[in-house]
């Protein structure tokens, strides 16, 4: 069975841990608990009738207190950029992290999610910015870990991309 290491990257408090919890255990907590280090969760998915074990590396948030260790990124098959729609600055962080990934492990399949669509009225990232990101080739999802909106679609899309990017399985003679 395929195992794919997927890193969740983004600024602090954008909802990386919440997205993983919602996806893996379908649980959401209002209480913010900052992540220090790494928590790895597993989730089995089936893509095109192929089972795939996603190893979801929930990395700590990027900010002035903690910078993502490049060693964490090694061995990744893909990654998810998480943004907080209510904080425009998280878009800048996401861009920097993407550049770090490309510099460290090369261009990998990735998806981006602008989280907290339950607070849409407070968003600072407007539609024109989203359109620009999409024009730049970012697969952008809008969702809410709190409401569970767009979460499954996000991971399913990345799994598809990972499968497409993976070399065809060897056929034994």
């Amino acid at each position, binding site marked *: 069975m395929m195992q794919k*290491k997927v890193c969740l990257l983004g600024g*602090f*408090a954008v909802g990386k841990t919440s997205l993983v919890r919602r996806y893996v255990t379908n649980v959401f907590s209002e209480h*913010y*608990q*900052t992540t*220090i*280090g*790494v*928590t*790895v969760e*597993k989730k089995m998915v089936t893509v095109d009738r192929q089972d795939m074990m996603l*190893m979801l*590396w929930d990395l700590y*948030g990027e*900010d002035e*207190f*903690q910078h993502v*260790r490049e*060693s*964490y990124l*090694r*061995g990744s098959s893909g990654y998810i950029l998480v943004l907080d729609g*209510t*904080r425009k600055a998280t878009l800048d962080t996401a861009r920097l992290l993407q550049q770090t990934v490309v510099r460290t492990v090369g261009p990998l399949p990735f998806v981006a999610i602008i989280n907290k669509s339950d607070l849409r009225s*407070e968003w*600072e990232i407007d539609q024109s910015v989203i359109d620009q990101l999409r024009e730049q080739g970012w697969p952008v999802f809008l969702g809410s870990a709190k409401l569970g909106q767009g979460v499954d679609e996000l991971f399913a899309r990345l799994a598809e991309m990972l499968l497409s990017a993976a070399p065809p399985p060897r056929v034994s003679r």
Partner: protein
Amino acid sequence: MTDQSHLPDRSLSDHILAALDITVLEWNEESGTFQLQGVPPEWWSRCFGLTSRSSLDLSRCSPFLQDYLTGIHSVWQGAPGPIEKSGPWTESDQQGDTMTLEARALSLGPRMLVLIERLGSDFENMRSIVQRARERMLVEGITAKSHRNTEIRLIGRLEASERTKDDALALLQQLGLTAMVLDERGRITFATDRTLEMLGIADEGAIGQSWDQILSLRKEDHLLVQHLLEGSSQTRSVGPFCLGRPCSKWIELEIHRDLGHSARRILVLHDRTEVHALRQALNEQASFHDLVGKSSAMLRVYQLVRDVAQVDTTVLIEGETGTGKELIARAIHSSSGRKNKPFLAANCAGLTDSILTSQLFGHRRGAFTGAIQDQQGLFEAAEGGTLFLDEIGDIPPNVQTALLRVLQEKEITRLGEAKPRTVNVRVVAATHHNLSEDVLRGSFRADLLYRIRIARVQLPPLRDRREDIPLLAQSMLGQICAATGKTIERLHPDTLRLLMSHTWPGNVRELKSAVEFAVISCKGTEIHPADLPPEITGTTVGPSPSVFIPLSNPDEKTRFLTALSEAKGNRTEAAKRLGISRATFYRRLVELDIQPH
């Protein structure tokens, strides 16, 4: 008891590791496995179930540890010595409890080791600090965002307010409204362009100034406006006020309380200069000096008076009793170049030859019995001015002669003196007689008539200018109310109708008497027909009377006596009660042979 101080080396290292709560793994090149060194801490066994000296099965390790241990070989293959930290990761034990671990890889000569420790209180403290810092950043972010939103909202409101202000201002300017706003201290905070233009001042000159520095009012007007500004009335209109010295504009003021700020006031100015000028022109047409009337007959009289006033000739004023002959004489004097000199009036009726001569020309002490001192006459007293001789048709022949000499020679001679005195007096005479007929009858000197009739003014009777009756009556009503303190606002239309239909043999004087009567009788704010004297209410338009008051009936003497009795012998008052002039009254007294006491 065991002697702990002499433990063998292996046992010592095991104890040290146990004391440090660290798990040590050593890479075994031959077996290709990680070998657990010493006794692992209790948490290790809970997570991985391994006991001492066993090999580590990577497949049983967490994904993170697997990843780390797999990737660590590249570190060992590099330069010896460096320690490669894994960074913290979260590990779950077999009971589902989580702990945070961190691994370090190092090489000691040929031996390659991995030390794994459970992060304890220091790590938790650090996590707590980071947690608080991030929470604080989030709160500050929310606060900053809230401030930004507030700022944006306020800027939006400010812009909207500015736009509204601009619109209102544009509208205000377009409407040409003359208005200004005063603050609680009466200083101008805003004035429209039209206001500045009207007052002839620049914007920067008005703002911040006190209103009374900009509006130069007379003292009493200033006090009134100040009083109204300090009052609490919502809106007041006052004026018109004269602006500037000399008066250059007439304005009316509307004083509004600013509903938004009760201490502020809005002044709306209305330029009434043109209206005032028109009103003045209208008033001048409707009245002339103290004469009231705008009928074509009176307008002709006004013009004649103006013309006569321009020359210095003798004037004869003709008209029925009560038509205002003395008022005309005063108007001529006031319009002439002699206006700053005396105006004296003498009634020539009912006076004896000597009294009239003395009165007009003066006398010397001892000239006649009772002449106890020198006395100048009216001609001398009126030096430089005008002498009005009323009822000139009644003067005795001797006085006519003396008067003729004055008019010809400009000289008078006091009684008892021989030396004439030069006088400079303009004579204006009046009569209700037809002097031409008097000349024919021989009672009046023709040469004197020609001398005094150089200019003539004929006053129409009131019945020939009925259209002036409402104006006259209203004017009289205002004067009488002001004198008596009564507040009667108007005359009922029926009352006016009656006044218009009366023949008014006593002319304006009779009309005034009737209005006085009505004011006394009136109990409300409007004069009704019942308030008028009975002779008015019973009168209809009839044939024009003669120029004389019809006093020839047998009751006339009784009426005169009654009037004198009621007036307690005061002839002026008695004449007033009868609605005739004092001159007529005296003449009639003589004609009716009444000897007043």
